[in-house]
């Protein structure tokens, strides 16, 4: 298993390898559940993360690859993952709770429940297409789009950061399986791990 590293992937790191793989295990991941129809709530949440709060999978805001510190992943109509730099999970959970106030909501720290997998390079979309039924062509899955789907038999959340940079949210206990499948399906294009 590749060593723990911090997300996000800095584009400058990218070597010309067709596929570069990076696992990030230390980041803060907080699950937020609440009412998507409550505009004030969304406003407040957006304030917490400093990003627009998405209401559909097609929007997956992040504050840019160069200094990205946050992602908000739409995981269902009332279900989101906030991904933030390592160590801030408690603070993030607290801010989210405060933003929700007395409304019915749920905040759950799942930082250890998931790992983020970065896939980059010209082969990234092709490699994903071996195990994921989504159409990942730019015309259908543009930069900033996300989706809940599966990669082979692992359920994942997937979003596109750049043309050839994708990130996947993978359940921790499936990380070994996903890595195994990556190794199996890249025998021709090769794989480079950080």
């Amino acid at each position, binding site marked *: 298993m590749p060593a723990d590293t911090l997300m996000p992937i800095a584009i400058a790191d990218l070597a010309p390898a067709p596929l570069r793989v990076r696992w990030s295990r230390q980041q803060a991941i907080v699950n937020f559940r609440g009412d998507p129809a409550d505009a004030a709530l969304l406003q407040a949440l957006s304030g917490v993360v400093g990003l627009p709060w998405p209401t559909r999978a097609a929007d997956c805001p992040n504050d840019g690859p160069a200094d990205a510190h946050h992602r908000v992943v739409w995981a269902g109509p009332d279900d989101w993952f906030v991904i933030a730099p390592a160590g801030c999970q408690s603070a993030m959970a607290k801010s989210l709770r405060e933003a929700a106030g007395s409304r019915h909501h749920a905040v759950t720290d799942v930082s250890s429940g998931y790992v983020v997998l970065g896939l980059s390079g010209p082969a990234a979309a092709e490699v994903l297409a071996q195990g994921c039924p989504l159409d990942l062509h730019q015309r259908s899955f543009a930069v900033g789009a996300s989706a*809940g789907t599966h990669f082979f038999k692992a359920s994942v959340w997937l979003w596109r950061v750049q043309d050839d940079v994708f990130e996947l949210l993978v359940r921790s206990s499936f990380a070994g399986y996903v890595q195994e499948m990556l190794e199996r399906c890249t025998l021709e294009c090769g794989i480079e791990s950080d």
Partner: protein
Amino acid sequence: MLIIDCPFCGPRAESEFAYGGEGGIARPLATETLTDEQWGDYVFMRSNPKGLHHEQWRHASGCGKWFNALRDTLTYRFHGTWKIGAEPPEAFTRRVQPAAPVGETVVEGLAR
């Protein structure tokens, strides 16, 4: 492999979904007042039609939501999906009604 239109995520591959059987079966209240027949009817009896079927699915590898669908069990074509609690599509009202449960009046000489 079917394409299923999740009301929340749009059309996606069948492999992302879990089938949840016949839809629209309300769980009876005051179950202790039911006869064994009425209870058995609710738990086990299904319309299982050949043709339009009201059923439920869950976008399991996706948004996780359960939703309703109207699907033709002969052609496997979907005639619509809708959120739980939302208005069904127009085709829904046109579908052949399932047979009456046991105990209700039986139409004599029903043909075709």
